[in-house]
C-alpha cells in the first residue's frame, strides 16, 4: 500500500520554476501552454489499514511534507 502525495505551490505564490519551464516549452514550439506549476511528488510505503492512515498522512502533510503558507497538497492511498 502506498500513499501518493502531490504538493504544488499555491496560486498566489510566485512559481519561477513553472514560468521558466513554460517559456522553454513555448520556445520548443508547443503552442497553447497556459501555465506550468512545478511541485513535488512523494510515495510513502505503508503497512496497515488505509483508513487509519488517511488522517495520519493528512497530518504529516500539514506539519512536515508541505508548508501550508506556500503549498497545497492532495494525496491518495492505494
Amino acid at each position, binding site marked *: 500500500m502506498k500513499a501518493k502525495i502531490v504538493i504544488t505551490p499555491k496560486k498566489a*505564490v*510566485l512559481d*519561477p520554476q513553472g514560468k*521558466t519551464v513554460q517559456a522553454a516549452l513555448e520556445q520548443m514550439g508547443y503552442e497553447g501552454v497556459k501555465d506550468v506549476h512545478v511541485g*513535488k511528488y512523494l510515495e510513502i510505503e505503508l503497512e496497515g489499514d488505509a483508513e487509519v492512515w488517511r488522517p495520519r498522512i493528512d497530518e504529516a502533510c500539514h506539519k*512536515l*511534507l508541505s508548508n501550508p*503558507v*506556500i503549498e497545497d497538497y492532495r494525496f491518495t492511498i492505494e
Partner: protein
Amino acid sequence: MRFAVLQFPGSNCDQDCVHVLRSVLGQDAGFLWHKEESIGNVDAVVVPGGFSYGDYLRTGSIAQFSPVMNAVKAFANNDGLVIGICNGFQILCETGLLPGALVRNRSLQFRCEHVHLKVPTTDSPFTREVPEGKVLRVPIAHGEGCYFADEKILAKLQANHQILFQYTTEAGELTDDANPNGSLLNIAGICNEGRNICGMMPHPERASEDILGEDDGRLVFEGMLRHLEARAGLGQAAVSEV
C-alpha cells in the same frame, strides 16, 4: 552575556557567529548541537545560516523537528531573544515562530553579493543600535530568500512595524532592481509581534569587523547585547565597557 549558537547537520555559519560574539564583542558564546533537549542557561539563541539537513524537502523543514527546537520554541515564547540568520530565518518561519515563508529566488539564481538595507524601525533589540536613517551594507548568500506571506500577514507586519530590514539602493530607495530575490515589500528581515524573535536573510556576522571591509552587521549583535544588558539592569557602566 551568554549566547547559544545552534548547530544542525549542514549548518555552516555557526563558527562565524561564535567568532563575532566571542572575539569581536567579547561575549560568552557556545555551540549547541541540535540533539540537545535543553538550551541551558543562556540569554540569547542564534540560529545560524547553512543548509540544515541538506535543504531536503524544503529549506528549514526538517530542522524544525530537531529536539533542540522544542527548547528554542519554549525560550522564544517566554520572551527569550532569538535571531535566525539566512537558513536560521527559514527554520524560524517553518517552526512558526515567525510568519510567512522563504521561497525560491524569483531569478532562480543563488545570489551571493552585497546588498543595501534600509532599517524602517529602530524599535527592536536587533535594530536599536542602528542610527536613524542609516543604510546598512551586508552580504547575502542564498537561493531561497524570497519572502512570501499572504496579504493579511503583510498588512499586519506593516501595521505593527515588524519589518526590520528591506533591500534598497545605496541611497535607501525601495526599488525592484535593489531586490535580489523577489521578496514581497523588499523584505530582508522581520520580527515577531513580541519583538524578541528576528529572522533575516542577510549575514550580519559576515560584516562585523573592519578587517573584512565593513562592520554594519555588528550593529545587529550590539543591539541584542544592549537590550539584554538593559533588561538585566546593568545600566550604562557595563555598556561603555564593550
